């Protein structure tokens, strides 16, 4: 036993010693900027911009290490817990932002961008700041507008003399007609975020701007039930198809498009280049974009919103200043927001960009030359605001479970909402 103790002591001593050694000082003229993200398109775009930007610092020799890292947020949070280095720039997918709100990590480890954005703050639509806000301060710059539209195959409608529906009633009606031939208009899955997307369009909210859980309030509860019943109606009529969450982004959907038994999808702007185009290269010219259907009583936004990735700067890193400069250059200039659209088709977050001919005038060959930017220009002023909360992830995951039960008819809309509210209240009480 003594022997064992000795060895453990030696090992521990080594450990403490090595931890105490100072990190090698970095040569001022040699700078390595690092970035981690989950989406390769960002790597592509940042790399291109970084090459231009580094000309501003001719005295510095930059190396850029921009990487796609699997399970990137698990890894960053693990590193933070262990006191390990994190990248200078981190693309935080907005769904994971609440993980960084926990314990105020975002505030203690990342740069507060509110004042740095200065006058540029107002140029970006408010709804693209809120997903990265913690206690009223902004910590991320978003990568795209994330406004929701309807991607569809016009030929399916034209062959049957149908037109593209503009309201939900028409949508269900058209869908019911197509359902007779086994064709669905779009699809849903048991995903909490997807539900929030439909809910926001109707003007509902799960959390308010302080992150409080407001679903139990009468107004929001009513809207949530309305939305669930709309989806129910869609499923029952065959207009909307249920797809297991494991298959939502994969080739199963693309194949259904290809076989003509699925018209399209109600999805945000990133769906186009991140999901659709790469997988359906062979279906070029078969798709178009239209506004998503609105609620018939007029009580609804023209669009909805879902997703986004905000780039944040690690404040304790040596290169925080350079990282912010690069981020500002890449994401917070109108010129490069337009370039971003041209290169990776993520829509600008600056409303002014939608007056630019390079956005509204650009015809996309994949959509048979349609000027898709025009569709977005019509809705950019009506994108709903998505508020963040510490409990958002808890909500989304449990809501996914409740949705699965609701979709297969095990519970009613009322029960589903009661269940989720009960669950959330337990979780919130536990976190007190």
């Amino acid at each position, binding site marked *: 036993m003594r022997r064992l103790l000795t060895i453990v002591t030696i090992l521990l001593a080594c450990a403490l010693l090595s931890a105490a050694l100072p990190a090698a000082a970095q040569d001022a003229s040699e700078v390595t900027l690092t970035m981690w993200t989950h989406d390769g398109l960002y790597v592509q775009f940042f790399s291109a911009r970084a090459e231009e930007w580094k000309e501003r610092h001719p005295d510095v020799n930059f190396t850029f290490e921009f990487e796609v890292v699997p399970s990137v947020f698990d890894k960053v949070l693990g590193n933070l817990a262990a006191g*390990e280095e994190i990248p200078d720039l981190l693309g935080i997918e907005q769904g994971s932002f609440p993980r960084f709100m926990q314990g105020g990590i975002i505030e203690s480890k990342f740069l507060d961008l509110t004042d740095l954005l200065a006058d540029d703050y107002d140029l970006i639509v408010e709804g693209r700041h809120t997903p990265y806000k913690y206690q009223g301060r902004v910590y991320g710059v978003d990568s795209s507008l994330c406004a929701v539209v309807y991607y569809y195959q016009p030929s399916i409608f034209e062959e049957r003399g149908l037109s593209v529906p503009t309201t939900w009633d028409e949508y269900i009606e058209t869908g019911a007609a197509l359902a007779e031939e086994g064709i669905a208009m779009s699809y849903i899955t048991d995903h909490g975020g997807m539900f929030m997307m439909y809910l926001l369009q109707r003007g509902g909210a799960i959390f308010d701007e302080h992150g409080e859980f407001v679903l139990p309030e009468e107004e929001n509860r009513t809207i949530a039930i309305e939305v669930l019943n709309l989806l129910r109606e869609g499923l029952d009529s065959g207009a909307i198809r249920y797809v297991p969450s494991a298959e939502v982004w994969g080739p199963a959907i693309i194949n259904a498009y290809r076989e003509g038994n699925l018209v399209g999808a109600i999805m945000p702007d990133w769906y186009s280049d991140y999901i659709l185009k790469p*997988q359906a290269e062979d279906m070029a010219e078969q798709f178009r974009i239209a506004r998503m259907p609105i609620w018939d009583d007029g009580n609804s936004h023209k669009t909805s919103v879902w997703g986004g990735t905000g780039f944040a700067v690690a404040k304790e890193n040596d290169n925080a200043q350079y990282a912010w400069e690069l981020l500002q250059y890449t994401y917070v200039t109108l010129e490069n927001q337009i370039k971003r659209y041209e290169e990776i088709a993520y829509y600008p977050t600056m409303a002014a960009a939608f007056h630019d001919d390079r956005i509204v005038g650009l015809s996309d060959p994949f959509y048979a030359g349609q000027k898709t930017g025009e569709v977005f220009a019509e809705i950019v002023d009506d994108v709903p605001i998505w508020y963040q909360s510490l409990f958002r992830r808890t909500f989304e995951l449990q809501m996914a479970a409740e949705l699965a039960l609701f979709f297969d008819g095990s519970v009613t809309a009322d029960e589903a909402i009661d269940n989720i509210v009960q669950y959330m209240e337990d979780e919130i009480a536990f976190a007190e």
Partner: protein
Amino acid sequence: MGERFGQRLGVIALHVVVISGALLTVAPIVFMIYSSFKTTTEIFTLPPWLPPAEWSFKNYETLLTGWAYPYWYINSIIYAAVVTIFVLFFCSLAGFAFAKYYFRGKNLLFIMLIGSTMIPFQLILIPLFILMSRIDWVNHPASMIVPWMAPAFGIFLMRQYIQAVPSELMESARIDGASEFRIYAQIIVPLVRPGLTTLAILTFLGSWNSFIWPLMVLRGNRVITLPVGIATMRSQATASQIPYGEMMAAATLVSVPVILLFLMLQRYFISGLTIGAVKG
């Protein structure tokens, strides 16, 4: 006559059952290999059991040139090999002690040993990672090797094998003045070679396949191992294509060497289990 007919029928039925089961078992692997030669569209086209229309090596080409795949491969091989060597040594040594010696606290130590296999790895993931960070082992090859050098399962397995070795051999060696370590090295090790083969295969496989730990401790495109690399390919779905075909090519190349290794060692492996596993 009737009996022989019945017997023959039985033999045929046996073959039918065994062969169809075997075919079902390898079907996903065949599918994987097929798919590695297909385009993504073709992978998802019915019927899925068809071989590729055209045996294209494009996926393999992209895999080897477009990704750091060769690095991942070499890393995985090195880690798996080094871990396996240490495991063979430490586990057989400890297994020997548990099988052939009486010492105070043996039962308690053995319960600890068994108990350690029941610690869910996810329970200690974060504390262990923090520990690695304190000793500066994050992104250091040691973190992939040292903690995994003496797994309890391997000791348990080796104990089973070594118990079957007759103790007379040890006794006579002792009378000849051999040290305890020499008894281990010159008598025990040669006799449990099949057992060591089994342990080697299982350890190599475990290391080769491990995912969460290398994901946590390794960083850098050329430093990671195969499973992490494949996961990276998956999350790196970019404008080019969600690389299903390339991922299947990657998966094929991951599996093939281990399958070959097994085929080569199969005889030792099975006879190794015969000796060890039978004696409770």
